[in-house]
């Protein structure tokens, strides 16, 4: 079985960086220690173009550079090399930030404010008039599913899931065009996860661009139009989810209650027939693809997988 990188989507190369929601060129980040000596190459020559209006998945195992990419895009850290543009403008500027919503990996908010105060505070940073905030804040809190009681409680009393929800609400306070979600479903219960996915879809339907960072493959598979898989700071693959998962030359045989001997016979049998034994073309799961990439790259097989 081989993993094929998706054929370069022709439309991608034709859109100009100015039209793209996000565009990076050879974006590289090397973390240095106190003395400026390189420590970790967290991101290596990342080229990425994300169209407006799509839900884009940034996938990769822990420590693969997803959060680093997001931080670079937001200007929280500065690239060692390369450039990044958002809506055609160099990222990190306040003008760009006013069109962005960001949900950090964990909800880092002022723990001594309550849910409502938090949203008012962030609203004021956007200079949203108080009158508008009065309407928008309760609406947002409804959207993310924080009830009237939770709104009046201090953030330090929030559960992880509630913190996630208020974090999402503050990311949406300015009705952003581009939303960056770093591991949005961690800490959420299955219903919360479901709601989050629905929300992402509805954001997409509103014409917004969403960048979704995750190592939870199921999330990504369900909602993303396109994904890229990062591993050790490098881009491994990029393409439409459907293209990436459609595996043309794999045949799957499903049976129940076979003895090992029968399996062996079956294998011999199939080998004798070669191709054409099956007509269907089942899709792999994203998990398979993911593991395959990781295994190919690391060459160690430390990420074990079930046989297919």
């Amino acid at each position, binding site marked *: 079985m081989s993993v094929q990188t998706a054929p370069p989507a022709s439309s991608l190369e034709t859109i100009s960086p100015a039209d793209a929601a996000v565009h990076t060129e050879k974006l590289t980040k090397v973390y240095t220690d106190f003395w400026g000596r390189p420590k970790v190459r967290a991101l290596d020559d990342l080229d990425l173009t994300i169209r407006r209006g799509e839900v884009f998945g940034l996938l990769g195992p822990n420590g693969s550079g997803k959060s680093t990419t997001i931080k670079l895009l937001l200007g929280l*850290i500065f690239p060692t090399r390369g450039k990044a543009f958002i809506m055609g403008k160099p990222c990190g500027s306040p003008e760009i930030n006013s069109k962005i919503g960001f949900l*950090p990996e964990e909800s880092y908010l002022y723990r*001594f404010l309550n849910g409502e105060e938090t949203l008012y505070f*962030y609203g004021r*940073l956007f*200079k949203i008039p108080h009158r508008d905030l009065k309407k928008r804040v309760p609406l947002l809190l409804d959207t993310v599913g924080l009830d009237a009681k939770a709104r009046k409680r201090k953030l330090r009393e929030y559960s992880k899931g509630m913190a996630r929800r208020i974090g999402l609400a503050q990311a949406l306070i300015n009705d952003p065009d581009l939303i960056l979600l770093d591991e949005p479903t961690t800490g959420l219960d299955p219903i919360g996860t479901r709601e989050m996915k629905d929300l992402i879809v509805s954001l997409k339907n509103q014409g917004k661009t969403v960048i979704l960072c995750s190592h939870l493959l199921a999330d990504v598979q369900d909602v993303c139009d396109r994904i890229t898989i990062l591993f050790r700071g490098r881009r491994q693959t990029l393409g439409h989810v459907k293209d990436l998962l459609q595996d043309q030359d794999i045949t799957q045989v499903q049976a129940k209650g076979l003895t090992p001997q029968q399996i062996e016979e079956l294998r011999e049998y199939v080998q004798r027939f070669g191709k054409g034994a099956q007509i269907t073309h089942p899709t792999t799961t994203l998990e398979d693809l993911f593991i395959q990439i990781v295994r190919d790259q690391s060459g160690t097989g430390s990420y074990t997988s079930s046989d297919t």
Partner: protein
Amino acid sequence: MSPAMINLLSQAEASEPAVQYPWIIPAAIVLLGVFVYGFRDVLRFSFGRVWAIGGVCFRDAIRRKVLWITPLAMVGVVIVSQLQKPIDGPDAIRQTIKFCFFATAIVVTVIALITAATNLPREIENRVIFTIVTKPVTRLEITLGKIIGFSRVSAAMLIIMGLFTVGYLHLRSWSWERSIALELESPSLNASDRGWLEHFHEQGLLQARTITRAGRLMQYAKLPEGNTGRWMQGGSQDSMIPFRVEPGNLAQAANPAAAAGAEKAYFIFNIPYEALPGGERPGDAAATAPEVQIQIIDSRSDRVLVSGEQLAMKGTQKPDELQNIRPASAALNGFARIEIPRAVGQQLEQAGSFYVQLMGQPNYLYRVEKDAVQIAVGNLDDPDPAKAQIIGGVPPANEPIIRGGLSNTGQQLRGPERGVEPVAIYSFKNTPIPQSINGQVPFELKIVIDRTDDSESDDPTLLAMQVKDLKSQKISPQTLVYPENRRTTFFSLPAEYLQSGEFEILVRNRNSGQTISLNESALLLIADRQPFAWNLFKGLFILWLFSLLVAIVAFFCSTFLSWPIAVVLSILIVLGKWTVLNLDIGTGIGAQFAQEYFPTNTAAATVVNQSVEALTRGLTLVTAVLPDIGPFGVTEQIERGGTISIQQVREPLKILLVFGLPVTALAYVLLRNKEVAP
């Protein structure tokens, strides 16, 4: 030399120079940092966002219970002030003010330091900054917002502490005022106590008055007439004549090759004298005059630069004549001369400015006029005084200073003895005179009374005060004052003699056998009174400015350092200049050092001198850029009940502008280039 003397000398010298702040460099930093480098951020500036960030910063501090330190401080103040042992009501109030103010200053400064130094590192550490920086907020707004937040924390604490101070002080003064009222009813009260208590009964214990100090304090054996007739009493008074010389002034020192007998530098002493009745030593003829001892004192370090013996050693005349100059008798009005040896000349040129100190013999009065000591260059052997050439640049720069004997607390003023009644003169120049009450202007006096003599008199000390109007030369009638030892005494003098603003207050001790000590600030003119609370408010406002300075420095340090190191560096920056100024490190310290430790080894002395000089130069350079926190210190003034002038509020404000603004700009530039991820 006693500290009192150092104080005296430096006061005589310094004429309150107007502090000039180098504003160009700070202005350039602000301009380049904020308006050039941060031009786009300035365009986007929104005070609404700054205020929002400041508000959250403030709430953060409140949430962290910093205000809880104020009740702690209050309890501390109450405990300490209950444990104090005041001598009287005013003293109790003074001490309480000190405790309150001290506690407030410590609490506010420490909290400002810690909050400001930890805020940014903490927000980066717990990543709250992520959600701030990714909003359309500029780092300029973050910098200013934080500083506003810190200043709000300080303001809140100051309001709480200020209210407590006012309340607590009123409580204390109320109980003391009640006991004063009771004391006043007692019939056995003596005169000085009564006057004193009545003053506080009328004015209350919580006072704020503007005081004016005399420009100069001198003491003479008799009241001078105009500009002449300054008499010094040997034994109990001395005289200092200030000089300023430049390299090359003492020609002989600059030209060692000069042939013997040629031009030399020398002192000319012209000191007429007078024996006190019965004071002539037995067998003393008019020809042998009473000696005057001389010493040369460095006016910068107040150390003895050249002793009398040193002058004598290199001399050509008999040592005793050199060491102890015998002035000609008053009648003869002659001269005494003394050569300045080459080595001494060099030392004097190095020092630049110095005093010649004259000390006489008891039982004699000496007249010390402007020409009492001069430096001349010429032929020392030529007896004709007219040929003595007073060299340019060296005549006495100031008038001779005549002082009473020095004690720890000031100059000693004796009572009348053998026809001599010494007079201390406080000179006031350009003094604004307050509205007089019943034709009188209030003064206050605080002296130390020495009854060390086996004084038969248990009489209360009595001082006679007079005003001399320098415009009309009229002298007021005497006002008698019973002062108390180490306690402020209040009296008033007729306004008509003070009107011109140029006047002298003449103080005489009326008790023979008693000595009092007074210094420059012993006698003060009360120019204005203000409500105590208003004065306290001004003091707290200055404290607020100080906390702001501390917060700015601490925030600046926290933009590139971890918080514990930022705290330490902030303390160094804020206290650095003050410490160096208090250590009194300046040029000349190297020479002193070398002289002290290597008096004989010249090579080593030179090396030590130069390296110490280089070190102090480096230190001076560093301290030059640090803020001067001196003007922020107003505790003592409030404690003494002195009003804080607008000028005194302006000085700290200027320091804050000149130092705080550029540091804020630098903090902004650093923050803009900082990766705000942990």
